[in-house]
């Protein structure tokens, strides 16, 4: 479904992605792991054709994805309908006067005639029905994230790219999200640096190292059990713990940051 080869990107000379290559098959649920600043958001934006990589290519169903190819109206229409990106900061994708209009934004562009039914359906599933009349910017961070998710799902995309979807969610909402995503019939690429959550979101992990290269591509469980590699990816660290009068040091990953 997605094929990435030899991808490089930098911002003003500072590399943010180095020699990235992988493929996503239809129906796969994949977790993209990596520490702060290793390039996860940048990769998702390149996959969504929002920024042009400095070199390398991204193909979606065999067709090249980039800001320039997406100028072609038919291709854009198809790609934007089938591929959806949830931004790390949902504020940047919410600009309609009400939550209702926000969710209806995609279906209206498609000129569907079941817009109202779609809006209510997805608002209900994501649990934002009570906010339908409110302006999105008055909601909390977690509520905004759910509205943004409903707005994307209303187009019933085939590929869902989610950038830290659980970062603003409380534990109950996170549990809900995990179950919700597991049942969703889409191809999924989710970023997180929450190691506890990662195996719940997908069976396969792509791990970006601090050198911005792909450090691991494969089953998630063996990777999470490999302390050396976790530390190399800066996903686990050693620090002191104080329990009563005792103090000791050991490595661990932080589930909730």
């Amino acid at each position, binding site marked *: 479904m997605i094929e990435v080869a030899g991808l490089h990107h930098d911002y003003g000379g500072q590399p943010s992605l180095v020699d990235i290559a992988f493929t996503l098959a239809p129906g796969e649920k994949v977790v993209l792991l990596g520490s702060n600043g290793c390039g996860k958001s940048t990769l998702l934006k390149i996959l969504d054709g929002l920024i042009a990589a400095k070199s390398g290519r991204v193909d979606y169903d065999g067709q090249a994805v980039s800001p320039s190819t997406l100028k072609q109206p038919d291709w854009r229409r198809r790609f934007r309908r089938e591929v959806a990106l949830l931004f790390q900061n949902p504020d*940047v994708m919410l*600009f309609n*006067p009400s939550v209702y209009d926000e969710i209806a934004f995609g279906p209206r562009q498609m000129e569907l005639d079941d817009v109202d039914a779609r809006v209510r359906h997805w608002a209900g599933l994501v649990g934002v029905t009570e906010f339908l009349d409110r302006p999105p910017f008055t909601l909390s961070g977690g509520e905004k994230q759910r509205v943004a998710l409903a707005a994307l799902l209303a187009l019933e995309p085939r590929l869902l790219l989610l950038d830290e979807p659980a970062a603003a969610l409380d534990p109950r909402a996170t549990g809900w999200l995990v179950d919700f995503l597991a049942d969703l019939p889409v191809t999924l690429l989710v970023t997180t640096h929450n190691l506890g959550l990662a195996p719940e979101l997908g069976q396969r992990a792509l791990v970006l190292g601090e050198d911005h290269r792909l450090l691991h591509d494969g089953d998630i469980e063996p990777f999470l059990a490999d302390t050396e590699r976790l530390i190399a990816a800066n996903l686990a660290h050693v620090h002191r713990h104080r329990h009563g009068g005792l103090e000791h040091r050991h490595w661990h990953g932080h589930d909730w940051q």
Partner: protein
Amino acid sequence: MPSAALERAKFLVWLAAIVAASWLSDAAWLAAGLGLVLLAAGRAVFRLTRRALLATLAFTGTVSLTYAAWFWWQQDALPLDWLVTVNLRVLLMALLTFLFIERTNLFLALGFSRRLSFLLVLAVSQSLALRRTLDEFRQGLDSRALVRVGLRDRYRAAARAAGWLFDRALANAHESARAMQSRGMFR
């Protein structure tokens, strides 16, 4: 690698030139100054002039038109000298400043003053962050646009971005002021 002394000298020249431009009231001298700056700009002359014109058009345009309208209403002669001088002066100052910013390493130029460097770092980091955020808002709209986005949606997205930035800027200003206070500024 530019030396700090050279960059500081450029800063002083720019400062002197700005002061001079604001004192001169003779259109001929201002025009001569403009000619010098245009010469100094070399190959960048068209790009910089265009940028300076765009940046000053709103100001000089409004001021000139208001004055012209006022004098016309008073049935008086148009104060042509005055209009020419003001427009020349504003354009000269803008060009001087753009040229200076382009040709100088500001961090080196202001390195002599801890306070100025600090303010510069604040300004630069704020404007980079601003640019990044605006890019993100643009991408947010782009990622959801199946067809070319209409004017109304563009306008809405821009208004939302402005609102968001305004909230952020207010919060940041408070934070920055507090951070600077805690590091011994404003005393």
